[in-house]
């Protein structure tokens, strides 16, 4: 028996709880190292490279964005100005300033509005689809949610500029409809499918035994959902909301087109705001490679990457919590 061959003697791994299934190594042990054995090892290494590529790309994204932005962080950036000033004037000839506060606040404000609109409806829809709807209704609603997710962000932005713009002007009597409210509504709709889908998964992960036990004691469907299913699924639901936040936070084209894109601290939802993502998209095309402005935009990119990284990490840890620590 070749010692390098997976010292695990349980060939068929009936006790296995591994990520992949325990394989047939015992069988190849019997026949020795023929061509099929070598072929198997070769494929194993090739697909391993595929698996590792995900890690490589995440690190690569961080490395390449940092590589372009680092010069700004080390030499030009004034941390107090970057996080404390709203003066984003990268093209000023006299003295360019890079205060990102208004952009950070703009992104946070729009994301917050989006969540206010989107979280109740997404969770409500998840509960309806997961717990109340049946058969064809359920399938149809799921397909519609999936189609909602498929609408490209530039089309959402275009809808924001045209339909939503008119709607806001008419409904609220504001002079301009391109504002935080517009972007918030659009982002809310864009973040809804992912929240609905993940939340429904979280509800589905609650064992049926819980529901049956509650129903056996005479609880109505709603009592079962409210008192048993929702408490049991709360981590998964939190994870769903976090992923929605991440989605809204990183959205680019729709925010660029719908938010009005003017730099100031918003005092009402009907103020025009500017987001971090939109700033990069709007300005990068006009900068010279290697200039301070160019590097400053990459620094905004680093900020976006780091924040979404932690949002996703948090979502993953929270969701994993429900599934028995796996």
């Amino acid at each position, binding site marked *: 028996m070749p010692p390098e061959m997976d010292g695990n003697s349980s060939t068929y791994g009936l006790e296995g709880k591994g990520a*992949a299934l325990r394989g047939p190594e015992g*069988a190849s042990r019997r026949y020795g190292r023929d061509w099929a054995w070598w072929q198997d090892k070769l494929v194993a290494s090739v697909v391993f490279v595929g698996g590792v590529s995900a890690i490589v790309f995440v690190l690569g*994204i961080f490395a390449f964005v940092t590589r372009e932005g680092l010069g700004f962080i080390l030499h030009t950036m004034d941390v107090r100005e970057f996080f404390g000033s709203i003066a984003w004037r990268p093209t000023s000839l006299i003295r360019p300033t890079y205060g990102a506060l208004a952009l950070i606040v703009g992104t946070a404000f729009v994301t917050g509005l989006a969540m206010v609109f989107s979280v109740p*409806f997404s969770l409500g829809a998840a509960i*309806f689809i997961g717990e109340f709807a049946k058969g064809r209704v359920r399938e149809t609603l799921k397909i519609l949610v999936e189609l909602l997710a498929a*609408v*490209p962000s530039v089309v959402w932005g275009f809808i924001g500029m045209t339909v939503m713009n008119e709607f806001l002007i008419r409904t609220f009597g504001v002079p301009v409809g391109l504002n935080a409210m517009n972007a918030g509504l659009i982002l809310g709709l864009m973040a809804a499918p992912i929240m609905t889908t993940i939340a429904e998964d979280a509800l589905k992960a609650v064992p049926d035994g819980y529901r049956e036990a509650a129903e056996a004691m005479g609880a109505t469907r709603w009592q079962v959902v409210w008192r048993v299913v929702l408490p049991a699924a709360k981590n998964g639901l939190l994870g769903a909301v976090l992923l929605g936040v991440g989605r809204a936070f990183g959205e680019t084209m729709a925010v660029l087109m719908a938010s009005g894109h003017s730099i100031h601290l918003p005092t009402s939802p009907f103020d025009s705001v500017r987001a971090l993502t939109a700033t990069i998209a709007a300005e990068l095309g006009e900068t010279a490679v290697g200039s301070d402005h160019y590097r400053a935009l990459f620094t905004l990119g680093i900020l976006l990457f780091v924040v979404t990284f932690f949002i996703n990490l948090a979502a*993953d840890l929270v969701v994993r919590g429900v599934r028995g620590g796996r």
Partner: protein
Amino acid sequence: MFEATPLNRRNARVELVVKLLFLLMTVVLVLPVLTILSILLVKGTPALSWEFLTTMPEKGMTAGGILPPLLGTVWLVAGSVVATVPLGVAAAIYLSEYAPDNWFTRIINLAIVNLAGVPSIVHALFGLGAFVLFFGFGTSILAASLTLGVMNLPVVIVATREALQSVPRAFREACWSLGATRWQTIREVVLPNSFSGILTGVILTVSRAAGETAPIMFTGAVFYSPFLPQGIFDETMAMALHLFVIATQVPGVPEAVPFAVALVLITMVLAMNALAIALRVHLRGKKKW
């Protein structure tokens, strides 16, 4: 027999109200898709014609057709699929069939989740820094396709892994017990039985790649080009960016034209999704296990 007590009746009322409330919430959420589609149809159809789809833009994009962006999107999507699918399927095979349950596999999974969550504009920055500048591809279809490919990698991996894992374990065990290696089992049993599922994932990738704007903005798609792309090192126009450009950057475009472009774009995307859904429904009906 049982008589409905006031409590029963109250419970039934609450039940009904709650159910209607959640139904209403769901409808509010999905209604916009139908609204958007109908608005685009009503406002975009007048500008739509065969000439619109097959001629070059004229007069600074205020007249003429959308042939270059349409072809450009086909180039970009094809490029990104060629780049992503082999890598994504390999990764999924590794995770589903080979990966042991250890910390390293957990890190790979975490990386996939995070890769899926990276904002599209950060992918654009990565594409610019890595493919355009560092590897020297310039702003080209190649660089833009690779950027889209990296962005879509998690979609392919997750969809393929799900398809592979829906093949029952007993199928593999039966094959192993005949003396087959892991790879022989994957090739002869697992892949044939999960092919449609993988195809569904690939179609969804196509749909997503066709609609993305930010990642291609600085890596290969241009606002306007008088030529059709001839190869992977050319710049190109693209549908999604074209919609952004004529909606925000070009004055004097007739009102119906951006609606028509949006309509064509969303039709391409939703047709792909409809195909994927149909395939999945068909698959579920056919499944013998």
